[in-house]
């Protein structure tokens, strides 16, 4: 129990003193995860909607693969991105390994299937409700796609939040492609892993508490914003 007491004290101290290192780590964490989620949303939502609305050969397979990819192991994704970006790899010339950009790339790969798979289900259900009316008005799948994404926006928020949850919580991928370099690629989760291995469990737990608080804050903000917007447009 002393660890927990010390953890709260450590977390409190870090937050109250606005520890410069902590602020840097938190900001980088947010930048990487929010950036990855933003890009994954731009890719995953249209992708999920396309799989939901269009009929093409292999569609059932695509749905299964999309759902299965939600469970991609972060370390494996990290390893693959590492191999692609390493000096000897096909994208080595870009010199991206051990940069925040590499971390964003890895997280985009992790998060896109989650957003795409959840979007597909949401749009599939919505299309069931709207199909006859929209087809009667003359909308094919291509016209229905933006309409349904917009009409499903409040439900789709959960897909984005699920993606953010994945991105902010994972450690395997960012550790491998970022390298946990102090002041360069150190984020909350890699910092926690490091403190644990150094034996400073209180500091690790303190960082963990801050990470959970951040996640709560972002989800809470999203919920309040959603409520306000939904109230106006039902």
């Amino acid at each position, binding site marked *: 129990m002393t660890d927990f007491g010390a953890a709260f004290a450590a977390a409190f101290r870090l937050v109250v003193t606005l520890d410069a290192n902590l602020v840097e780590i938190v900001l980088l964490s947010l930048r990487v995860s929010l950036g990855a989620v933003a890009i994954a949303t731009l890719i995953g939502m249209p992708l999920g909607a396309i799989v939901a609305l269009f009929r093409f050969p292999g569609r059932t397979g695509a749905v299964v693969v999309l759902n299965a990819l939600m469970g991609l192991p972060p370390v494996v994704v990290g390893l693959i991105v590492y191999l692609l970006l390493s000096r000897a790899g096909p994208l080595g010339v870009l010199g991206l390994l051990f940069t925040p950009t590499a971390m964003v790339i890895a997280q985009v790969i992790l998060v896109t299937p989650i957003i795409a798979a959840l979007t597909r289900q949401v749009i599939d259900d919505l299309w069931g*409700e*709207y199909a*006859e*009316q*929209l*087809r*009667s*008005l*003359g*909308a094919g799948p291509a*016209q229905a796609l933006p*309409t349904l994404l*917009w*009409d499903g*926006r409040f439900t789709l928020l959960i897909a984005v939040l699920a993606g953010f949850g994945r991105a902010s919580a994972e450690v395997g991928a960012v550790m491998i492609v970022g390298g946990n370099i102090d002041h360069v690629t150190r984020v909350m989760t890699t910092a926690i892993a490091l403190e644990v291995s150094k034996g400073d469990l209180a500091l690790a737990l303190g960082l963990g508490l801050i990470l959970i608080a951040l996640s709560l804050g972002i989800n809470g903000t999203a919920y309040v914003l959603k409520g306000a917007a939904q109230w*106006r*447009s*039902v």
Partner: protein
Amino acid sequence: MEVGVNFVGTAPRARSAKASILPLELKGVSFSVAGERLIGEIFCRLESGTRTVILGPNGAGKSLLLRLCHGLLQPSSGEVFWRGADGLDPTRCQAMVFQRPVMLRRSAAANVDYALALRKIPRSERGDIVREVLDQTGLARFAGQAARTLSFGEQQKLALARAWALKPQVLFLDEPTASLDPAATRAVEQIVAAIHAAGTKIIMTTHDLGQARRLADEILFLHKGRLIERGPAERFFTAPETAAARAFISGELLW
């Protein structure tokens, strides 16, 4: 509830020069699911101008027949043929109002505007048309309100306004008042009458005999997926030819 009938005269778009896609011919149309025939072989020809009411008990296949005519379903055999189409795209000359209105998550006005945008009506003309149909259907004061916050009856009126804005030559209505209270039913019937007066062919299903009496010029009586009687409404109600139609009119259930 004031429902104007001068819609055509004030419409900013002139469609009068366009030929009619009617008459509509059903050439042996049938529809089966998993080997079970739900719509029998139906042959008939629907002319322009009249209000055709497809009448029959629940499960007779009224809604299926309407969807086949509108092109939402493809017949298993036979053909739905718009005799007058001649180069016109029939799908652009029709609209349909469903039993349960499907409103998009946006304002009432934006719901109408959306339908017009799909038909590629220029943005500059859309505002006027939207205002006009909302006016005609008594919904002007709800223009900016989220469509899904409207009452069910108002949503159905909005669905009619949305269909009317498209100035269809043919308007299909699938039991449009089945879940409405009497006042809303009356309002919907008035709007349907106004749309008809403005020159649109009405094809509508109902199981409500009173409504059929009020609205129909012509009755198609459907029973177990087959068209078993057809004729002018007056004759159908005073002197039905088939036993099934007599039983239906007298209120005896038939399945």
